[in-house]
């Protein structure tokens, strides 16, 4: 039993993702249909970090739930590698804005719960400490979630998702509830985890700076009906400078694009 400082992983742990013409309609309480996502198509390479950027109601969370397998598309298909998505799976981890830690379990048991759910707790129990160390919370293993700050709780949620070695990690505004400073720190944290693991990450956000700072590509989405407006490559060297000229230029371009979408709306 040799525990190593960081988990040993293959070069690229992630899988590619293919979304083909996925639509999702919901029934409103008044009985009318509401088109939350209109034939979205998207290809994500293995190990890529892609942001879904847009205002609320643009269908970014809907798309994420389809990828997670928690909802089924009304039309279209989704594939991980060559496998069609038919339901939720441990290979597609999900982290929400609210960490949603199980409040009745300690930090350790929360991280462990993926192992328990998959029935591999006995073989992999030693990994729990590894992942606690990975997110820097080894000192809080026996604390209950209500003792943790927002940033700490979100780290636990990340460790809980990562311990399952997901092929794709889905992040639904994971840093949205944090204050600006914690948020920037956690962005680096997520990037560190991504670089160490090369898990494919789909990162939902409504923060343009965050999207530029983090992603390889940005999927800009617009509301009513929710659809993919444009996909932008972010060709900036990492680590990125938040106030660099090229950063700010890209920011301006995206802002203009979103303004344009607003005109299109009106």
């Amino acid at each position, binding site marked *: 039993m040799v525990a190593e400082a960081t988990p040993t992983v293959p070069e690229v742990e992630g899988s590619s993702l293919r979304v083909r013409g996925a639509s999702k309609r919901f029934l409103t309480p008044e009985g009318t249909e509401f088109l939350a996502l209109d034939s979205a198509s998207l290809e994500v390479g293995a190990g890529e970090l892609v942001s879904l950027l847009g205002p609320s109601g643009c269908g970014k969370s809907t798309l994420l739930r389809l990828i997670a397998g928690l909802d089924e598309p009304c039309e279209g298909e989704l594939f991980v590698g060559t496998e069609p998505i038919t339901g939720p799976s441990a290979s597609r981890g999900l982290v929400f804005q609210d960490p*949603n830690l199980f409040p009745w379990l300690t930090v350790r048991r929360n991280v462990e719960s993926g192992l328990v759910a998959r029935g591999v707790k006995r073989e992999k129990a030693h990994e729990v400490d590894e992942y606690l160390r990975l997110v820097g919370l080894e000192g809080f293993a026996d604390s209950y979630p209500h003792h943790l700050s927002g940033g700490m709780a979100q780290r636990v949620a990340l460790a809980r998702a990562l311990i399952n070695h997901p092929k794709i990690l889905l992040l639904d505004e994971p840093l949205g509830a944090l204050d600006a400073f914690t948020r920037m720190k956690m962005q680096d944290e997520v990037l560190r985890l991504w670089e160490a693991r090369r898990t494919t990450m789909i990162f939902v956000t409504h923060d343009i700076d965050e999207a530029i700072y983090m992603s390889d590509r940005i999927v800009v989405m617009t509301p009513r009906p929710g659809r993919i407006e444009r996909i932008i490559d972010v060709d900036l060297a990492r680590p990125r400078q938040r106030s660099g000229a090229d950063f700010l230029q890209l920011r301006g371009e995206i802002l203009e694009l979103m303004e344009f979408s607003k005109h299109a709306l009106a």
Partner: protein
Amino acid sequence: MSSPPPTAPAREVADASPPDASNEATGPGHVSSATPGTAAPAASRSWRRAAALPLAAALALGLHLGISGGEPPAETRTYSLFLGGILGLGLLFLALQFRIAGLQTWIRKNAPLLVAGIALLAVAEIITTGLRLLPLPYFPSPAKILQSMVEDRGMLWTSTWHSLFLLLGGYSLGVLTGLVSGVCIGWSVRARYWGMPLLKFVGPIPATAWIPLALVLFPSALFSAVSLIALAVWFPVTMLSSAGISNTKASYLDVARTLGAGPRFLVFRVAIPAAMPNIFLGLFMGLGSAFLTLVVAETVGVKSGLGWYLGWAREWAEYGKVYSSIVVMAVFFSSIMTLLFKVRDRVLVWQKGAIKW
């Protein structure tokens, strides 16, 4: 019988001092907790508060000896021993309070309550033995109640055991069935469709309304009592646990699904733990109705237990025994309630600071 009246009013005035003393002790006590800076006055206040208990006991004892001249000597002796015991304990606490750290805070917290309790006993004694304001035999003096408790302790003890046996049997059966049906109704749509109308229709009927049917259905009164208690417990436990299960936060279930959870994990490791606060509410409500049903069932069918003892004592107009069984019930039921509270605090330790009842 004839001697007490002249002395009684004077004693009554004397008796008014313990609650007064306790009030005096309460006031500065709160101030001292707000300003812990000065040590010497705080110590003297602590002394005063600790002294209130033996003082109250001494006054109550004096009162008792003064007005109980015409009462049976055995009764007087037992009650004097009781008050004397409290007096002794109070003096012991007074002497030890600066040596044992926990004792002092305990006294500070509980002295006013204890003094009030002693005062209440003294008032009851003035009303009954002293002024004879209440008709006998329905309202015996505290001394008489204590005496009948001491005399009939064997019977009370066996009755308590019988009640405990019935209660545990009925309660655990009710909790078990209630949890099973509650989890089913809360989790499965089909179980909810068929179970909910039954629950809504049958549940609100007081379990005691089934007594005639239970006596016919079951071979023995014991069986029928156990099943009546179980029925009384089943309803609130089912209701509250199904509500808890069906209100499980959807995102907990979503997260668990993306962690690879199957239905078993979702039910036993997400929904049930999430419903625990609600389940405990059901357990508390169930325990309350179990006490009620127990006492009623014992008075009608079962020929043992505290409820039976109470009814039997009443038929013989031995009201001392009636009250002593009520006192035993109070101690017995509240101990069980306290036990359940302790279990809850243990199980819901994760909730501390979040929600407090």
